[in-house]
């Protein structure tokens, strides 16, 4: 059960052109996530969603402020599902699973195989990523992230590059996996419907990387996209977005 604390976090990038303004990706945000919850971070493109995950995972560093990700007071173990699968193309599916694991024991291999089986990829162990479709590659990415048994799972728009049918199928796979494992998840998306279907809580980021809203979704899991309650809630949230006024930067 991971605890995420984000405090006065800011991230600036150098001006893209000489003499231009610095790019404010995240501006002094504070939030906390505690427990086995599925939290979505929603917002338009360029509002700092992916930057936030990169800072949480240690891939990027903040300009100011701090983030802590702990599990029972110790640094938490992370899993990450990216926008694209990010598999080593020269390694087989099973080798990709083992690449991120701490040991190569038989138990570890069996565990990796179990997660591949959960996403319906039993017969792909010896195949290379190039032999799989985009959806299958992304399923390997999801299985890989779950298989390290993370305390905190970071997911950065994992279905945005996929067609609607595949994305829908993978959302169902994800809900099933999450229901079984109940990990703490931070899920970045620009798709409100996706966020409502999957999350217990939605943090809305506005352009400039400020928190616009923080909503609780009180519906039982698993949810179907076709569920009228999901659709109604989605419409309500989208209605709020139409009136989005970005708070003044302090």
């Amino acid at each position, binding site marked *: 059960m991971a605890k995420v604390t984000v405090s006065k976090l800011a991230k600036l990038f150098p001006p893209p052109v000489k003499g231009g303004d610095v790019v404010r990706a995240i501006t002094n945000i504070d939030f906390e996530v505690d427990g086995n919850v599925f939290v979505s971070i929603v917002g338009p493109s360029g509002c700092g969603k992916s930057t936030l995950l990169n800072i949480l995972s240690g891939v990027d560093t903040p300009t100011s402020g701090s983030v802590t990700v702990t599990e029972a007071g110790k640094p938490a173990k992370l899993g990450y599902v*990216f926008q694209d699968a990010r598999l080593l193309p020269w390694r087989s599916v099973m080798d990709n699973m083992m690449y991120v694991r701490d040991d190569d024991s038989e138990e570890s291999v069996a565990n990796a195989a179990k997660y591949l089986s959960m996403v*319906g990829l039993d017969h792909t162990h010896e195949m290379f990523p*190039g032999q799989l479709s985009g959806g299958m590659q992304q399923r390997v990415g999801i299985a890989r992230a779950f298989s390290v048994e993370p305390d905190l799972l970071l997911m950065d728009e994992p279905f945005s590059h996929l067609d609607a049918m595949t994305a829908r199928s993978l959302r169902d796979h994800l809900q099933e996996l999450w229901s079984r494992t109940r990990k703490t998840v931070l899920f970045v998306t620009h798709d409100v419907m996706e966020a409502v279907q999957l999350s217990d809580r939605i943090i809305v980021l506005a352009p400039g990387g400020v928190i616009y809203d923080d909503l609780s979704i009180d519906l039982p899991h698993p949810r179907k996209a076709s569920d009228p309650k999901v659709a109604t809630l989605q419409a309500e949230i989208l209605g709020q977005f139409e009136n989005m006024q970005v708070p003044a930067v302090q």
Partner: protein
Amino acid sequence: MTTLIQEVEPEPDSTLKRWILSDRGATLTAAFLFLVMWQLLTLFAPRVPNPWAVVKIMWIELSGGDYGSVRKGEFWNHYAATLQRYAYGLAIGFTAGVLVGALIGASNIARALISDTVLVLLALPAFVWAFLTTMWFGIGWQAPVLTVAFTAFPFVAVNVAQGVRAITPDLRHMSTAFGVTSVKRFRHLILAGITGYVFAGLRFAMIVSWNGVLLSEWFNGQVGVGFRTRFWFDANRYPGFLGWVISFIIFVVALDRLVLTKLQARAFRWRNSGDELDKDLLATVG
């Protein structure tokens, strides 16, 4: 208006046509046509030795005899000397190429500083190195070894640099996010990522540098395939000259086809795997 097109079942290709169009058939057919054209050429150009004369003199070189005062076993002595120089030169050029290529691939500063120099070296033909090394080192083993090394080096460096650049920042970020150890990263991310490019570089290096060792031995050798080639050239015996050159070409091509091509194909099998997308599997698992 409706046009009725009658469906005609295509006739299967003949067995001979299928054999000629196969890889092995095409190779053997090309070799046969080459021999026929060579034989025809000798009818119009009397100073071009015919294939049989070349085979005959090379058999004498190989088995011993009195033609050209060759003692039995001398063929292998010449070959061993050349192969040793070739191997040492390739080892030096390969090692330097891997190191410099990795540097160019990994560092923008190194790329800015060195890549143009490597491109210039890439454009220098082997015979220039054969001349230069002979002038610098005189008669001895250094000139042929360094000719091969200088010729091979840029081909390996360029390919390895390309391989290192193929390891995208995304994959490095993924490794960081999952906390993958440095040892695992080196083995599975870097080494495995560049292996195919290393073999590609080595193949190019071998193919372009073989003539360097022969030329260098031609200029300054006391022993070796190049020296022996010059011996027959000076003796005005063109079958011997041509036989030695062809024998070394056959050796390099055989080494390439039987060993390096297969190793490279194995190292790059992941890259070709997309062409063999398993449609049955896709249908099964969605």
